[in-house]
């Protein structure tokens, strides 16, 4: 609202007298406020009277709490742990099976069979003749004979390998047959050497 006679009102107000409050008013107000603040900070319960409960009551409360704790510790965590362990074991087994094989399976068996005819080891009987022929070839040192000599050396080397196998794995018919074949080839080379000599 707009004051119509503002100047006159202002002048009248300015002319009003001023008074100070009595000196004791302010300390009394201050004390009153302090009392009010103390009553707000202190809870009403503190002003209530307190009583100590009977010992039997506390013991009953304690026993009840312990029983509750025991129930929780005994049942729930153990079940959870057992289930977790079972799941972990199954997972571990599944991963193991998928990643690795179960390992080799080893079995033994025993039987009998007919004894084969014994082999007469006479394959070294003619060795001196071969050595003499080889020495002669070296002495002559001719191209055709040298070629035959190299052939003989290769067959001699193969023969030693076959004989070593007979020692390492025992006398087997297949290996003896291989030795016989090499012997035939050696004989053939030997004859050709003799013809050339």
């Amino acid at each position, binding site marked *: 609202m707009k004051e119509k006679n503002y100047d006159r009102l202002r002048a009248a107000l300015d002319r009003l007298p001023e008074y100070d409050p009595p000196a004791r008013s302010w300390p009394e107000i201050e004390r009153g406020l302090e009392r009010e603040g103390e009553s707000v900070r202190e809870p009403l319960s503190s002003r209530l009277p307190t009583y100590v409960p009977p010992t039997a009551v506390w013991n009953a409360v304690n026993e009840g709490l312990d029983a509750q704790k025991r129930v929780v510790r005994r049942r729930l965590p153990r079940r959870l742990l057992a289930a977790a362990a079972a799941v972990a074991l199954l997972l571990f087994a599944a991963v193991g099976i998928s990643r690795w094989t179960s390992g080799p399976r080893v079995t033994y068996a025993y039987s009998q069979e007919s*004894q084969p005819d014994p082999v007469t080891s006479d394959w070294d009987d003619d060795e001196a003749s071969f050595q003499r022929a080889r020495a002669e070839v070296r002495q002559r040192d001719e191209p055709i004979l040298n070629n035959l000599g190299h052939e003989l050396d290769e067959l001699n080397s193969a023969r030693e390998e076959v004989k070593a196998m007979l020692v390492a794995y*025992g006398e087997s018919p297949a*290996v003896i047959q291989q030795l016989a074949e090499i012997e035939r080839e050696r004989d053939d080379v030997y004859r050709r050497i003799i013809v050339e000599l």
Partner: protein
Amino acid sequence: MIVVRLLLPLLLLWLLPGTRVRAQADLREVVTKTIEDTYPYSLGSELAVEGEKAEIIVETWAKPQISVRVVLTARHQRLETAKRELENLEFVTEVAGKKIYLKNRRKDEAAKPQSELTVEYFITLPEECPVYLKSHFGSATISNLRNRLRINGEFSVINMDNVQGLLDIRTRFGDIVGEKIDGNVVINARRSDISLLDVGGTFTINAQYGDLRLSPNPNMRDLRINADKSNVYIYEPVGGEGLAYELASNNGEMNLPDNRSLVELERTNEWRRIQIGPNSERSGTITASVTFGKLFLGKQR
């Protein structure tokens, strides 16, 4: 007469133990140790086998697994000796990533067994599994493989049946017998006979000291033979009119069919080179060069 009747059973009873002893002497004990294992197969898996005096048999199946059965055997008249000497044989496996490595060896290499010791591998795997075989004495038998096969053999017979893909075979003192082989094949053979039936694709054969009997099929695109001190027999396939031949003989003998028109390219006392053109559109070429050996070209029966 009564005396004879009484004595005859006694005589038979007396002879019986002797017969049993002789029968036992004719027998020998066989102790066998079998090791079985299975490995998972996936793309990139490879199998390598190093066999010593071992029969290696490789077959295929549709399962994504590699099955291995190794049979170690000792034969001797005395069971104890066979059992003891069998334990000197060792089977070793190693798996490095997707590579499976199998090997047999002797624990004590200085041992001289009285028993006859043998080793057998029975391997079954997917047909696309690459295989590497190293065989020192023994044999290798492979069938139905489709990918890559490498064989390094010494004193080992190599048998192949229905094998395709990349084949690299080296052999010394070990014959090769093959049937139904198709692919890119390289064979280096020394002191080994080679017999190949119904083979096609691309073949390169280098041979010294051996007999080669080759029966290509009409799918043979390129067959190159270099043979030294070897006899080579090539049998033309039925329906192989598209095959062309270029044959050379050095210090050897050449036997050719009468019904084919050939072109002499070179001819001296020691050296002869001829060419036989295809009777229809060219489907493949067979080139053979033989030194100090026979070269025979004939029809398949």
